[in-house]
């Protein structure tokens, strides 16, 4: 069987602002091969696939579709070349039927009139081909299970004569049986000559399903391996092995009494029996892959999401925090993961942001003392070394790092005893990162208890006193940070 190359990506580079997401990345997709693409969060897998699907334009490099160089970039060009991506969030219209979704871009012939019968039969045919005759083409997609929705997505790709199918973490939402069904389908498609890219954090699966594995790290190509020539621990090492930089200032915090104790917390689908404690002056890291339930856990603690069970004990007293308001009253602060959507008021003055949660401290009878407001904000911003023009400039005039410092300043202002940081340095350049780490250290030294969720292994290992690792909503391990290595954590992140 001759190797037929469907897609060749050569020396692809892409940067966002000053951040290099991809550097000289090579990648190949061959006919009739299931190719795994792995790497840590932020290694550049999604960026690479988005370039392939035409959502992003590469800065440099070449892409060949079946030997012919691609000209221009658009989702249409990639689709016409037979590239089809199935993202974690499905691109389906939940209120439309299965058949309508499969043929969403070709509902009718030129006349503009839909031939319902033909469409239904065509849909039925495709569903039969993939071995899922039990899906009714007339069913509303929103009423199907997640697994079946995924099948509909795949059918949609097939109906467009896809030659390359890219699946981004397809198994994350599926049960064991559903995964087996998916695998059977993928093997069938492979036999028929489809080139498949399978992105997953579950290493076990890769050995079961894939033929080749390409490892990425920090936007670089690490290597491609045939599945028989590599084992799991080697793979983990390849994914994480890197030298640590001296980004991290020293911390001299005295770890004191327990501030927060969480017992058997359950919330929604993503948080299962989570327990942990965090002490005064301590930085407790939360490791795990994206979607492991870390954000959801801390959101439930902070009173954003509803809790379904479990105890939260704050300084020895059981509390029931139903809203963020109650959490803040109990001196808890949360630096949200999505800065622009949840962390700052982008189109409002910097000082409004800093004093937002303590507005009553700078007002009397509800009337703001603007002078006090200003000097209060300026003081706090000095502490977090934020750089800005005027204190009344809008936050969106600042760099990402300084925006984050403004968001952090809000909790400094509120004098919190417990601060939850969700990906505190996401989208922040390296220089500002070091300063934010310094801010975190200052907070801990001043006696705050800090919970830090981070998907960056370096950050987690260098900043945390202890690390909790979560996977699929559960705590899989708690590690004292005595010279911990990436591998120790990675092992707990991925399914054994």
């Amino acid at each position, binding site marked *: 069987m001759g190797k037929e190359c469907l897609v060749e990506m050569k020396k692809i580079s892409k940067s966002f602002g000053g951040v290099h997401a991809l550097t000289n990345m090579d990648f190949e997709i061959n006919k009739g091969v299931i190719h795994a693409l792995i790497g840590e969060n932020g290694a550049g897998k999604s960026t690479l696939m988005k370039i392939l699907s035409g959502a992003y334009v590469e800065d440099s490099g070449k892409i060949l579709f079946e030997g012919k160089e691609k000209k221009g970039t658009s989702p249409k060009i990639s689709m016409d070349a037979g590239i089809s991506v199935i993202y974690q969030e499905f691109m389906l219209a939940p209120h439309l039927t299965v058949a309508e979704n499969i043929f969403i871009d070709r509902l009718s012939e030129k006349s503009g009139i839909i031939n319902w019968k033909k469409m239904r039969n065509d849909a039925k045919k495709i569903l039969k081909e993939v071995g899922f005759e039990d899906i009714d083409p007339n069913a509303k997609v929103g009423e199907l299970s997640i697994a079946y929705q995924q099948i509909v997505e795949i059918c949609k790709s097939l109906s467009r004569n896809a030659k390359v199918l890219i699946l981004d973490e397809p198994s994350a939402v599926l049960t064991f049986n559903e995964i087996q069904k998916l695998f059977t389908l993928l093997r069938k498609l492979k036999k028929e000559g489809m080139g498949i890219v399978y992105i997953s954090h579950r290493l076990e699966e890769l050995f079961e399903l894939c033929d080749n594995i390409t490892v990425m790290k920090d936007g670089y190509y690490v290597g491609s391996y045939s599945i028989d020539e590599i084992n799991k621990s080697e793979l983990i090492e390849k994914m994480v092995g890197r030298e640590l930089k001296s980004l991290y200032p020293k911390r001299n915090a005295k770890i004191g009494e327990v501030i927060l104790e969480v017992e058997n917390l359950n919330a929604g689908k993503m948080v299962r029996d989570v327990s942990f404690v965090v002490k005064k002056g301590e930085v407790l890291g939360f490791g795990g892959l994206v979607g492991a339930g870390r954000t959801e856990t801390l959101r439930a603690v902070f009173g954003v999401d509803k809790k379904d069970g479990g105890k939260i004990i704050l300084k020895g007293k059981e509390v029931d925090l139903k809203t963020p308001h109650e959490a803040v009253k109990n001196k808890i602060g949360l630096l949200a993961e999505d800065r622009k959507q949840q962390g700052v*008021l982008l*189109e*409002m003055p910097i000082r409004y942001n800093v004093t*937002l*949660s303590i507005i*009553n401290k700078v007002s009397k009878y*509800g009337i*703001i003392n603007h002078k006090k407001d200003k000097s209060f904000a300026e003081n706090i911003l000095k502490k977090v070394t934020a750089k800005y023009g005027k204190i009344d400039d809008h936050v*969106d005039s600042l760099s990402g790092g300084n925006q984050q410092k403004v968001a952090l300043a809000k909790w400094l202002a509120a004098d919190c005893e417990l601060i939850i940081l969700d990906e505190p340095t996401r989208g922040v350049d390296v220089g500002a990162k070091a300063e934010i780490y310094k801010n975190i250290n200052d907070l801990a030294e001043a006696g705050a208890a800090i919970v830090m969720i981070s998907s960056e292994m370096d950050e987690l290992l260098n900043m945390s006193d202890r690390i909790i690792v979560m996977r699929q909503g559960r705590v899989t391990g708690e590690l004292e940070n005595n010279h911990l290595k990436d591998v120790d954590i990675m092992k707990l992140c991925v399914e054994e």
Partner: protein
Amino acid sequence: MKKDSILNMIKKYNTYIILIICILACIVVSPDFLTLTNIINIVKQYAGLTVIALGMLFVIMTGGIDLSVGSYVALGSVTVAIFLTKGMSVPIAVLLTLCIGVLGGTFTGILVAKIKMPPFIVTMAMMTVIKGIAFMLSNGSPIKTPLNTIGILGKGKIGVIPYLVILAVIVVLISAFIIRNTSFGRIIMAIGSNEKCVLLSGIQVPYYKIAAYIISAVCAVLGGIMAASRTAVGTPLYGTGLELDAIAACVIGGASLNGGEGSAIKTVVGVLILALIGNIMNLLSVPSYPQDVIKGAIIIISILIQIFTSERKKTV
């Protein structure tokens, strides 16, 4: 450099520039425009809309909308007239009428902020509900207010300035103060800018939103009382379509319907722009149906000017 600073000036003061253009147009069109009587007449006629638009502004700043204000105007005029015919004193009648606004606003606010229903739908439903109540209470016919009661407010003046205008100015000043100088105003604005962020900052967002709907309803009821005082009659026919004028005034005044932006003074300028457009057409004796078309077109044009000159960056 100089060109830039001129452009910035235009951006910053675009609402005022539109107002000046309107004033100049009025002066050119009619020599009668600049007479004191004409100006006082215009201002008095639009004092009610000013109050209503300012109430609306609070809701719009949170990112919501209140389509029921026109109906509250009708209800306000009817109830105050009924209370007065029952022999209540003016202050008590007015106070009780305002309380109706508080009740209605609270109800709307709870549906929007607590139950999280879309404000457009809730207030549209409230529009019919409130209008219907106004018709029920009045049996559909105008109710005359007793002599020497609320009519004094409508007719009276200090020097040449009518009471109604003074009342509107007071409401403007209070609104401007609340928006600029109180924590309430700042939080209302912040909610419109980014509700999630405000909620995560530990602020009880629902209460602030409910308060905004209460302010809107109370202002509208006050507008109804003012209408009744001007004509000495309360009728369910008042206020029809006024919600659109109020929204237009806010938006012409630079408020964003996405929330987070708004100014009391500029909203007044928005009302004045609407007033002058109406006045020019009256002076030119344009018949009333074309007037509606022209008014609508001018609203669109002035908002287009706002969009093209605004500093707001486009976010996809």
